[in-house]
């Protein structure tokens, strides 16, 4: 890399010279491929003729009219909402508990929270497949405790996918909530308590309102990652329980109907961008004062 040249250019050109290489790579490898994919979704396809570069709305009409696609997108949405709720219910109290620990314990447990993020999603999901199978430890434990008599079905069900994805994505929620907890002045809690508030009141009236921005930004991240998750739904859900991303995968690599797969992918991308940008706007407008 020669950085000498950019600095010698006139001031106004310097930032462009510095960002130029990355910009070129991104234009060539993000914008063009994504554009080609959108274009591909308007191409024709036949079992024997393959991809025909003729403009058609066939794929989009098929997605819009066939309830099969509606069902899969609805399932993807439902799973993402459930995973987001589960990460809030578990992650918010856990972040609060972590924040109250002594620094030494906290950094030890932080390893447990962050560590799994660095382990391949395939290995983590394999763990859940072993635990949740009909003869897995979860079912054996529940039977041994006398809570159930016949094994519960987790594999190839939405429940199983939600459990695995909650495990995969909960670190993001905890980190987001923890970041907002760290901005919290501990004295406020003490002030509330000295004014006679019980711990539940403190939680509801003092702490929760202040971590809401953290919960919301964590929710956006978790929802987006859950909606686009692939490996976990593919392994736990199997071929029977499809979500948007595994549907696109099947169209591309099994059915080989690339134009239809491209339409599914485009729809997933557009829906997700709209949801993320929309909720970001909402969060920023509502909580503008808490963001720097």
């Amino acid at each position, binding site marked *: 890399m020669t950085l000498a040249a950019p600095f010698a250019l006139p001031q106004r050109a310097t930032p*462009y010279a510095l960002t130029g290489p990355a910009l070129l*790579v*991104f234009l060539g490898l993000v914008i063009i491929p994504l554009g080609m994919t959108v274009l591909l979704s308007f191409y024709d396809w036949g079992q024997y003729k393959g991809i025909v570069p003729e403009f058609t709305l066939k794929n989009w009409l098929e997605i819009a009219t066939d309830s099969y696609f509606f069902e899969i997108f609805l399932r993807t949405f439902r799973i993402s909402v459930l995973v987001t709720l589960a990460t809030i219910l578990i992650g918010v109290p856990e972040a609060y508990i972590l924040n109250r620990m002594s620094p030494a314990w906290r950094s030890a447990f932080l390893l447990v*929270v962050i560590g799994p993020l660095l382990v391949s999603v395939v*290995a983590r999901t*394999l763990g859940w497949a072993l635990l949740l199978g009909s003869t897995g430890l979860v079912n054996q434990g529940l039977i041994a405790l006398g809570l159930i008599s016949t094994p519960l079905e987790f594999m190839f069900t939405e429940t199983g996918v939600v459990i695995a994805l909650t495990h995969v994505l*909960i670190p993001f929620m905890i980190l987001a909530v923890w970041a907002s907890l760290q901005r919290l002045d501990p004295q406020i809690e003490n002030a509330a308590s000295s004014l006679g508030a019980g711990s539940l009141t403190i939680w509801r009236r003092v702490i929760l309102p202040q971590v809401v921005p953290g919960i919301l930004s964590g929710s956006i991240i978790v929802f987006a990652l859950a909606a686009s998750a692939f490996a976990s739904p593919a392994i736990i859900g199997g071929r029977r329980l499809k979500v948007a991303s595994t549907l696109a995968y099947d169209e591309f690599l099994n059915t080989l109907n690339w134009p239809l797969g491209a339409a599914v*992918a485009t729809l997933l991308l557009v829906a997700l961008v709209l949801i993320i940008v929309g909720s970001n706007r909402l969060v920023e407008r509502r909580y503008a004062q808490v963001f720097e």
Partner: protein
Amino acid sequence: MKRNGPLALVFHALFLVFMLAPLLIVCIVAFTPEGYLSLPTRGPSLRWFRAIFDYPEFIRAFRDSLWLAALSSTIAIILAVPAALAIARYRFPGREAMTALFMSPLMVPHVVLGIAFLRFFTQIGLSGTFTGLVLSHVIVILPFALRLVLASSYGIDQRIEHAAVSLGAGTGTVFRRVTLPLILPGVVSGWLLAAINSFDEVTMTVFIASPQTTTLPVRMFLYIQDNIDPLIAAISACLIALTAVMLFALDRLFGLDRLFVGSGKG
């Protein structure tokens, strides 16, 4: 600050079980002496760890994954450092748009990126090649590299650089001797986070890998789709052990909270 009550500690213990159970079960099952998935009730055996060596395709995929991670994160950091310096120091038209573009791989589902690369690489003849894998990985890991370099670039006192210039240092010397050492923590942790993300990436890679050129997570994923046996548990256990060692080293070197909190992936 108040301490955690007993109820909070019970919740915390259950949370730890939830987080660690899937990783532990993989490691335990990997030691089974039986030919099928089971807990090693007859005592631990290394049978399945030895069996890994009978599957050279996994060894090869592991080696390719390491190369891919090293190469793509190096290219990503080379692109990210000048871009981060420009974004941190200059106000120029297009700055916001460019930052959004560089961060966009975090928001675009990897399935969509995988499909886009598959289509693009098929058209230009890079499909199934190692070059294709490297190029696509550079894109998805650049946001991590950029974010950490950016974080370390904001805090620099530019007067130090001006002092170097006034003492007669050329642009190259200033960068090499002053700027780079100052942002080095961000560069190193950015490179590492990028390399880890490249090594773990499976969703996008599964579209563009070929049977000859593939990564370890992709090979494991395709294997699990067909059947789950103690062999795949043993391979996963090796990965978990490797990650644990690396995590420990990272924590000692940088402090994990510095590496992730407020700057983690997302």
